[in-house]
């Protein structure tokens, strides 16, 4: 390892501009002649639109135009799409009712957009939006996913009977039922995975711009995947052909999944720019983010784990109801199916698994991938069950996990639910975690806490995730509408420095640094001489973007392939100039050397020769610029054990995390500083889910948690310091050996935290605590347990 190559905690190249206020986030961009947009939104969860009167708005000061859903439809702008097809048990395709970008005759959730008002200033646009008179006829609404399945529930879409999107299954039901028949013990649980609101601190925003001369459109957008946005806006929404549309995602202030999707506002601003022949800018107010950024989680499950007399897991049976919201967001359908139930084996050798999932529509904001996407829900089901089973059977929770873990010599390991795990050492991570968390000393700490009147508990979460999504053929076979490869391009400039272009997108992950480290290591160029370009469809040839912890495993691997091509071509050039056979040239640390001699050329000199090819091998093209596409061979499978230790004040129910230990196996680590930062952030989101965050709708479908005043975000004083460590089993399936680190914390932490809370209260008769385990919820749980005991 060099001081700045793979494995070094290189300080980030991007930080200077962010620290000095010189970042270019979307709202910082203003285009010549720009107009401003404000959206008119439904205040009702369900209503029929009897009419929209735009006359006052059209005549309001500064207003340039007002458009409704009818205008979009008249222009042939297609509805928003869902790009993943799920087939129900009975062979039916999933139900996908039309999702117009602006509602036409019915609104289906609070925040559903019905019109756009475009004006000279933002204030005028907002004032104009107030003047749009929509004649709503309120309809009954349903917000709860279980409620939506009842026969008496109102229908969110007339063409979705039973509010059902799909009823899907995975695993062998008969075999699983048989496993339960022979169980010595069965643990049953009702498990709710609370609904979350992503809340990247930068709100979503867009500028649509039309170039009359070239008939070109440009969309500036807060996107995690600008090429996918261009593809969808072209192929499905029909806003412009792909070659006439440029999508730019500049500095983006966090995504966590919520900026993957192709939303109504971006689509409408782009379309409207051509209509008004002016750039049209929209930036979400935070209240709009709460109402319209795709929410996460919202599962209601019944789960059972069967164990034999020795504690070995025999079978896992799960039924899950998943809330899709009012419409299907871009990748909504795959989250509670292939990103969830295929992970239900966890780290264990459970031989029989069956899960069925009913995905349902409700009058709520669409639900889609949020940090972890399906895998936190799977981990929560498994790890709550395992912990509960340990308690019910009187076993040590760490040991129960250990005896059921996939052993080191069993890889590649085929689970009963599609996935084949490539590698891992789950016991090693557990051991390190037990040691770092001082599990042996817990009993003493618990009795010390008791002496202070506090209840102390410890909880485990041995999680697994599938990252680096994903082999394109597998994605296609499972219903995905895209390929999930990545592209990378390495361009040496004549003076020897390097510009690399990646289809991955960085919105906090630090790719400008880590990708430079990869190229620096592979090609022997200083990190400071490598510039990373991303987020612009006119600069980067193509890309699938950043989500599912895929950037290093897939995007980084594409750059490795491109680097190999650079070296291959450099060999030819160096051999010619050094007058040696290509077979005799060695490439190390950025130098091409004739083996056994001191005849050498740096890669910079080779680059110069490639652009000034006066003395150059015959048949070799000038220039040193290579591109590669990389399609992964499999998912990667990061895994680890997190241990959370809490103290609870039984008089108030308040929970304090006193220790949090995270031991993760991410394979090869490129930049430990950045990887640890990803774990910190993920754990904070997971702890937030466990203790603080919960999106609440009332029965009428009103969003009660619609601002930072009402939705409890983790703050500095409400999340703990986190003790992070790593074990390392490099993935054999990609050239870097990396697995992905972006989501682990959010996946592992909810179960570790709730397990700790339940452990603290078990002796009081508490058997479960809902998320978020707020002081009020914990106190109520303690009181209920006390009453039940009387």
């Amino acid at each position, binding site marked *: 390892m060099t001081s700045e190559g793979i494995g070094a905690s290189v*300080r*980030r190249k*991007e*930080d*200077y*501009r*962010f*620290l*000095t*206020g*010189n*970042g270019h*986030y979307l*709202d*910082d961009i203003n285009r010549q002649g720009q107009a401003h947009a404000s959206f008119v939104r439904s205040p009702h969860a369900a209503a029929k639109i009897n009419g929209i009167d735009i006359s006052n708005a059209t005549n309001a000061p500064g207003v340039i135009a007002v458009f409704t859903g009818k205008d979009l439809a008249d222009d042939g702008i297609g509805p928003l799409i869902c790009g993943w097809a799920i087939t129900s048990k009975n062979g039916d395709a999933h139900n996908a009712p039309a999702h117009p970008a602006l509602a036409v005759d019915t609104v289906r959730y609070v925040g559903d957009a019905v019109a756009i008002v475009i004006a000279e200033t933002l*204030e005028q646009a907002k004032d104009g939006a107030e003047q749009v008179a929509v004649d709503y006829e309120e309809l009954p609404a349903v917000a709860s996913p279980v409620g939506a399945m009842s026969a008496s529930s109102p229908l969110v879409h007339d063409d979705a009977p039973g509010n059902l999107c799909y009823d899907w299954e995975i695993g062998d039901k008969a075999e699983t039922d048989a496993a339960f028949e022979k169980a010595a013990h069965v643990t049953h649980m009702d498990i709710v995975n609370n609904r979350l609101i992503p*809340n*990247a*601190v*930068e*709100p979503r925003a867009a500028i649509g711009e039309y170039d009359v001369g070239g008939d070109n459109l440009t969309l500036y957008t807060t996107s995690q995947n600008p090429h996918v946005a261009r593809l969808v806006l072209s192929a499905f929404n029909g806003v412009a052909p792909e070659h006439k549309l440029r999508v730019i995602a500049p*500095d*983006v*202030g*966090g995504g*966590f999944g919520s900026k993957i999707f192709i939303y109504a506002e971006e689509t409408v601003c782009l379309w409207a720019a051509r209509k008004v022949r002016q750039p049209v800018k929209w*930036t979400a*107010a*935070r*209240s709009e983010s709460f109402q319209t950024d795709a929410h996460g989680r919202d599962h209601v499950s019944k789960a059972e784990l069967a164990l034999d007399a020795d504690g070995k897991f025999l079978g896992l049976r799960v039924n899950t109801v998943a809330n899709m919201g009012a419409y299907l967001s871009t990748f909504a359908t795959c989250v509670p199916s292939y990103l969830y139930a295929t992970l239900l084996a966890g780290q264990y050798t459970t031989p029989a698994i069956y899960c069925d999932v009913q995905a349902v529509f409700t009058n709520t904001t669409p639900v889609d991938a949020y940090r972890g996407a399906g895998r936190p829900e799977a981990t929560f089901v498994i790890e709550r069950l395992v912990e509960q089973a340990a308690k019910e059977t009187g076993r040590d929770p760490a040991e129960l996990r250990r005896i059921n873990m996939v052993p080191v010599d069993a890889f590649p390991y085929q689970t009963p639910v599609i996935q084949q795990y490539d590698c891992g050492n789950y016991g090693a991570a557990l051991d390190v975690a037990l040691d770092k968390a001082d599990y042996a000393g817990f009993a003493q700490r618990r009795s010390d806490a008791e002496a202070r009147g506090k209840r102390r508990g410890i909880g485990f979460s041995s999680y697994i995730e599938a990252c680096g999504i994903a082999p394109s053929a597998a994605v296609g076979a499972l219903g995905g509408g895209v390929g999930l490869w990545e592209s990378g391009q390495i361009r040496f400039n004549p003076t020897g420095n390097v510009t690399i272009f990646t289809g991955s997108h960085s*919105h*906090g*992950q*630090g790719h400008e640094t880590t990708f430079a480290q990869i190229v620096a290591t592979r090609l022997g160029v200083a990190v400071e001489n490598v510039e990373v370009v991303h987020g612009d469809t006119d600069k980067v040839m193509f890309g699938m973007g950043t989500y599912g912890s895929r950037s290093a495993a897939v995007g980084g691997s594409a750059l490795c392939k491109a680097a190999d091509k650079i070296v291959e071509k450099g060999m030819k050039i160096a051999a010619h100039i050094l007058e040696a056979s290509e077979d005799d040239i060695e490439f190390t640390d950025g130098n091409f050397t004739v083996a056994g001699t001191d005849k050498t050329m740096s890669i910079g000199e080779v680059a110069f020769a490639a652009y000034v090819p006066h003395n150059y091998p015959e048949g070799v093209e000038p220039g040193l610029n290579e591109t590669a596409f990389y399609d992964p061979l499999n998912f990667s499978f990061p895994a680890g054990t997190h241990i959370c230790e809490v103290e609870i004040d039984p008089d108030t129910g308040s929970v304090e995390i006193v220790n949090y230990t995270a031991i993760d196996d991410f394979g090869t680590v490129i930049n430990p*500083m*950045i990887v*640890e*930062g990803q774990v*910190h*952030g*993920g*754990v*904070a*989101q997971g702890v937030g889910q466990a203790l603080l965050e919960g999106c609440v709708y009332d029965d009428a479908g009103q969003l009660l948690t619609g*601002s*930072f*005043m009402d939705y409890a*975000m*983790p*703050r*500095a*004083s409400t*999340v703990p*310091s*986190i003790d992070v460590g790593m074990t390392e089993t490099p993935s054999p399936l990609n050239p870097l050996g990396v697995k992905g680190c972006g989501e682990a*914390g959010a996946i592992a932490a909810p179960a570790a935290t709730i397990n700790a809370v339940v452990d603290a209260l078990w002796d009081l008769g508490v058997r479960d605590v809902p998320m978020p385990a707020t002081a009020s919820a914990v106190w109520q749980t303690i009181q209920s347990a006390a009453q039940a005991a009387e």
Partner: protein
Amino acid sequence: MPVTVSMTVNGKAVSGEVEPRTLLVQFIRENLKLTGTHVGCDTSQCGACVVHIDGTSVKSCTVLAMQAEGSEVNTIESLATNDELHPMQAAFRENHGLQCGFCTPGMVMSAVDLVKENPDPSEQEIREWLEGNICRCTGYHNIVKSIKAGAEAMRS
């Protein structure tokens, strides 16, 4: 009816015509084109817009531009001198106290004011001081570490 506001921003006398309802953060971003100060919410919760008014950290979305009339305002753009980062900025870089960077200007401006009031804050004091600054990326772990280090650098 537009009004004229005048103040000193980052050491320069500035003035502009604004609607009376214009917030200070809008005046800074839109009139002065100083876009380092960010807007992350509409309820004065997130703290991405923290600036200093007469030396004290203030959420510039809670103040009308007119209320800052005659004040000395400093934004994130004022901290580094001649391309050299302020010790607090340098500490954030060194300790990976930022990821997406969007909350960072507010965090740094808030931290500088903390250290002015309390030159050697404890971890708990730092965490409590940051009550009004939301970060979604870092889990605050490295922000707290950065501020500790930044405070030490500012003391020396």
